[in-house]
């Protein structure tokens, strides 16, 4: 297994897009921290960029990469290697390098300028989001044979998590504003890893006071050990489930 990971990683480290992504994150983080004196303020400014850019780049880059390595996968499948080994290696290689790009691009500036709990939470959430969206990209790319359609689907998936989901939540919020739906909001937020990350980081900065009664409920839930454990499990599920579905499909795929 490590052999294939080695080839995937070697290929990805020479990839120009990934390099540009790293430099872009680095420039953004350094300039944001350079402008803000307060570390927490810097984290909040960076938060919005990270929650927008990381899922987008992770999912689109991975989908394009998977379609472009179609030949490589085909070559490997005709060799004496397990299909699950091939697929797992590609996931580990991709997720590892995309997360590494994030750690270099955001992790290092955070360590230098804002080595706080909120900063650590930002880096942690960014890494998990990278893994989740690589995993979703694997699922999209394995299901759809056509490259253009596959990339289209990943853009749609990103759009859903980044914008449409929040719009839906707002809509529900206004429709049911007469009812006590605060606990429902916690459950609803679990359906979107981007939202989970946003809440986790905002709670670290103590901005929950601005979120009113819902903020208090969030505080109560995410602030406890049990709540955090459930959140972590949900995030791991978000990584594992799409990956597992794609693996199951890949094992039966005709190449």
């Amino acid at each position: 297994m490590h052999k294939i990971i080695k080839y995937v990683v070697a290929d990805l480290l020479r990839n120009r897009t990934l390099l540009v992504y790293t430099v872009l994150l680095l420039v953004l983080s350094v300039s944001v921290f350079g402008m803000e004196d307060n570390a927490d303020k810097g984290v909040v400014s960076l938060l919005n960029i990270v929650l927008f850019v990381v899922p987008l780049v992770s999912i689109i880059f991975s989908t394009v990469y998977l379609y472009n390595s179609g030949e490589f996968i085909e070559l490997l499948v005709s060799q004496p290697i397990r299909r699950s080994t091939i697929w797992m290696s590609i996931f580990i290689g991709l997720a590892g390098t995309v997360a590494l790009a994030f750690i270099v691009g955001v992790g290092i500036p955070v360590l230098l300028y804002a080595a706080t709990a909120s900063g650590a939470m930002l880096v942690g959430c960014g890494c998990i989001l990278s893994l989740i969206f690589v995993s979703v990209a694997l699922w999209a790319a394995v299901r759809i044979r056509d490259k253009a359609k596959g990339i289209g689907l990943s853009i749609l998936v990103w759009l859903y998590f980044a914008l449409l989901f929040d719009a839906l939540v707002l809509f529900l919020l206004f429709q049911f504003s007469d009812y006590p739906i605060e606990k429902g909001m916690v459950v609803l937020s679990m359906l979107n890893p981007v939202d989970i990350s946003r809440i986790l980081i905002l709670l670290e900065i103590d901005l929950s006071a601005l979120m009113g009664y819902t903020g208090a409920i969030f505080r109560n839930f995410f602030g406890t050990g049990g709540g955090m454990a459930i959140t972590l499990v949900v995030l791991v599920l978000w990584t594992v489930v799409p990956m597992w579905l794609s693996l199951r499909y890949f094992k039966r795929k005709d190449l």
Partner: protein
Amino acid sequence: MITIQNISKRFGKLQVLDQVSLTLAGGECVALIGPNGSGKTTLIKAILGMVIPESGSLLFQGQPVGQQWAYRQHIGYMPQIGRYPENMTIGQVLDMMKDIRKMPEAELDTDLFTAFGLRAMLHKRMRTLSGGTRQKVSACLAFLFNPDVLILDEPTAGLDPVSTELLKDKISAERQKNKLIIITSHVLSDLDGLISEVVYMQDGKPLFHKSLQALKAETDTDRLSAAIARVMAVHELMD
């Protein structure tokens, strides 16, 4: 060596393989012939586990293949269109395959590597290669690990006459070692003198599986192309 039992595969509405059953033994050199779209490549890919049949089973050296993968180390496969990672050089591709197959350097069969003069091109990137050079790399990889079964899908397409002869000599040499060789080709004149058996596929089914001698005797010709032409003519008359 390879037993195929009632394999069926359908791509959407198209029945690509329809209850195919074949028995292929070591020491045979089988020509898989048939019109375009008759399921030759799909059958080969099913043997390699690249296409997963809906029904039927495949036995390799008496063992059912199923979801197994280790049996592929006994197969050398030369695809119809060799597709390789575009950014890798020939040397890197060869090294990667050696790394995956884990065969000691001394046991490698580098005859074709030497014959095709690939050593001088090791640093060339795959994307810059011509179709013929790609075919040479594919052929070299298929023979490199000294496999018991060689599956060659249109091996001579795109090769120059000199390289074609080199490849044919190599195939003949391997046949002497009691290996099973499966070749598909539309250039029937290339197959004459190379093969011992003929499998003729049409509409996803093997129409017949005969030895070359029997086929020639039946059709009263001494060339494979003439024999196949006659069989096809008779078949069309029957339709």
